[in-house]
């Protein structure tokens, strides 16, 4: 019983892994090729390149990642801190009565 389960599991993982690896290595741009992207044969550049060119004079911060985290995509980071808040409230809520016994 368990041995057949293990065989099925191993086979499934191998199949999923090989399919993922094949798909990704076959048709993604090769590793290290930023900023080049090929869309339908045409060469396009990824959005990230524009940040490198403009971020420093537009925002005055030397860390480009920060200019994205709070500048260009600041709304995402607001959402991210909301997620943290949500998880905190969720955890407090789950332990609420236990806390009162303390």
């Amino acid at each position, binding site marked *: 019983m368990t041995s057949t389960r293990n065989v099925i599991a191993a086979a499934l993982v191998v199949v999923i892994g090989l399919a*993922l690896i094949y*798909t*990704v290595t*076959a*048709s*993604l*741009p090769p590793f290290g090729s930023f*900023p080049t*992207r090929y*869309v*339908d044969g*045409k060469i*396009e*550049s*990824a*959005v*990230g390149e*524009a*940040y490198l060119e403009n971020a420093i004079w537009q925002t005055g911060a030397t860390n480009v990642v920060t200019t994205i985290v709070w*500048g*260009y*995509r*600041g*709304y*995402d980071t*607001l*959402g*991210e801190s*909301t*997620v943290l*808040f*949500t*998880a905190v*409230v*969720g955890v*407090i*809520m*789950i332990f*609420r*009565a236990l806390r009162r016994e303390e």
Partner: protein
Amino acid sequence: MIPHAPILVIVLPLFTAFVMPLIGIIAERYHIKYLRELIAIGVMIVVLILAGTIAQEVWNGEVIVYELGGWSPPWGIVLAIDALSTQMALMIAGLGTLVMIYSASYMSRDSGLSYFYTLMLLVISGMMGIVLTGDFFNFYVFLEIMSISSYALVSFRRDALSIEAGIKYLIIGSLGTSFVLLSVVMLYGVVGTLNIADLGAKLATYGGTNVPSVLVLSLALFVTGVMIKVAMVPFHTWLPDAFTAAPTAISALLAGPAAVVGIYWVARLPYLPFGMPVGLILISLGLISMVVGVLMALMQRDFKRMLAYHVISQKGYMVLGIGLGTLGATLGTQGGLFHLLNHSTYKALLFMCAGAVLYQTKSQKFDELGGLGKNMPITALTFLIGALAISGIPPLNGFVSKYIIYLAGFQAGMPWITAIAVVVSGLTLASFMKAFSSVFLGQRPQHLQGTREAPKPMLFSMIVMALICVAIGLLPALGFNIIGPAAEAAKNTSSYISHVLGGT
């Protein structure tokens, strides 16, 4: 339109949620009753008004583009609001308000209410963020806000059942959101942008031929992730447990407004940003869900569990309709979106009725209930309206949208789909007649003799929902004013793309 209305709709519930724990502390220290409830309801009403002002603007043919932080797309995040988003935002705000009023009295016996209202507002804010955003990664972030707060809300009562349901929902739901994240990552790898309009414009150049296999994989992952959230049949296992174990106000919230979010992406998916044919997948998933959902519902002996299986079945109708819409049946998309509007009202109403019964009798098993029609006449009447609406009986709203989906089946040249849909509808009626007779008719057990009618705030929400059901049933034009532009906007990708990318 009030300036900044698009962002205020999302941010007002969010910031109120931030201060809600403090409001809770103040309310407990100074013994102010209903402070949290009133603030939550007030915020929801303001959000509803703001959504209304947005809707007026959008229905004039505009696509509102709001650049957050003043960064233009595709570098910054934008909110892009077309008629489809507007329909969803209006439904979330309206139904959210009613659910909030309902929970003000339904949850009054529980502890930890400030956390409850915090999480409720976070769910609303997350859903608003999902339907209004124009950025793919931002969609993922707000999906997580909505998901995490609903995981926590499902296990709010912390009994054995709800903890187990919460864990199940969390594991399966996180698997779904991880798939969505992986799909977003692959899209960034191939196309190099995250803006939905930009993605749509760049992927449209493929025209369905010579598509790299990564894009197909990305689409497959995204469909799987969305389908886990919509709970179509192979991925539905979390839903019955979660809806049964959650407090009924949460079940109504998840069945009404939260259904909106999944269907919103199902309706966007065939057109933006992938633009690949997924019609047959949607149709087959929808058909399987309809049939399996209703068959499972017929077997249930638990009030809320039966309603939960009907949620799966009814969502099958919507996915089926939208799938038919991509195959050339123009009525299909309209039918699916219209059914979403109707489903959200009557299913939230049915859950509220089940909650009212549960609140007064502390039981949700059919075997322990009976003869409550005399004790709770208004609940019985509203439940009957909801039951007839979900079964598609003519003067009520469910009939209109189901009829459109039947017609779409013929329009797409697949009359056997219509046949299946009619049969499922009949089974739904049978299931609800059984439920109605075993709860509200028949012998009343001894210990239920003194049962009283539900409290007034609960009745208010239920009556408003029932009135909406009747009104849309009698005057379908009311619904079509919302649905018509939405169905058109879903298909009109070029207008969306040109508004977002064509400057401010």
